[in-house]
């Protein structure tokens, strides 16, 4: 447990290191999730549109 505390303390620099890593993770995961949502919502809209038009819903 003590070594774990030392790991998070990072020689006193943990207060700078961990916010840096945390925000990086948040931004990168956020960008990924937003991009997946952007893609799937567009896919759904295209499919709905093609169904209305009576076209075959060919992917791509």
């Amino acid at each position: 447990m003590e070594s774990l505390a030392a790991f998070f303390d990072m020689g006193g620099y943990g207060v700078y290191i961990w916010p840096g890593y945390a925000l990086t993770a948040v931004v990168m995961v956020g960008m990924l999730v937003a991009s997946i949502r952007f893609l799937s919502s567009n896919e759904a809209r295209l499919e709905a549109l093609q169904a209305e038009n009576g076209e075959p819903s060919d992917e791509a």
Partner: protein
Amino acid sequence: MIQKFANPARFIRLSQALLPWMAGLTLAFAAVGLYLGLVVAPADYQQGESVRIMYIHVPAAWMALFCYTAMAIAAAVGLIWKHPLADLAAKSTAPIGAAFTFLALFTGAMWGKPMWGTWWVWDARLTSMLVLFFLYLGYIALVNAFDNPARGIKASSILVLVGFVNVPIIKFSVEWWNTLHQPASVLKIGGPSIHPSMLWPLLLMALAFTTYYLWVLLLRLRGEIIANKIRVLRLRRVHGQA
């Protein structure tokens, strides 16, 4: 029309094959890179444990420049050869590059405070990096500003190409001028001045960031292609051809 869609269709098939690879590689590189960087790599002889911020700061800064360069090339190809995929690739890269630039600035502040004694200084490197961030934001605002997407792409492509002059300025700012920021450690004449035990986690994290970019780029690009297709279908319906 068929000609125009032939390429994007092939791209979508290709991207579907590539996506799982990019996802897997990103997770694998990041897992090994983080383990080496946070656990295995030693503390620096000068900077102690604070050096571990480097393993995200430097890859983020590299990718900020890489994405902008990729955007400039795509914008040029789009302007010259009117290649629709190139235009969409530039548009899809912008938010990813902006995110990397923001992260480079933020992690830099987190590193600068304990080491330099300040979150921020207006030296040539830091200022030119902030300019890059505003160039990304300007592009994103401009590309969405037009009702006619073709015109938005054209105007913002010109902005990207004009702004490209900033990229060599960022890279060489630390050599051309007196800066608080130190010169390059890895890409320099005479080989890297960074110990292999610290260079390996850095390179692995850089690989993880690169495959992450490709992963997100493929997703966004597919989204943009489908958005284009929706626009074409809507237009056709408005004109009563459906």
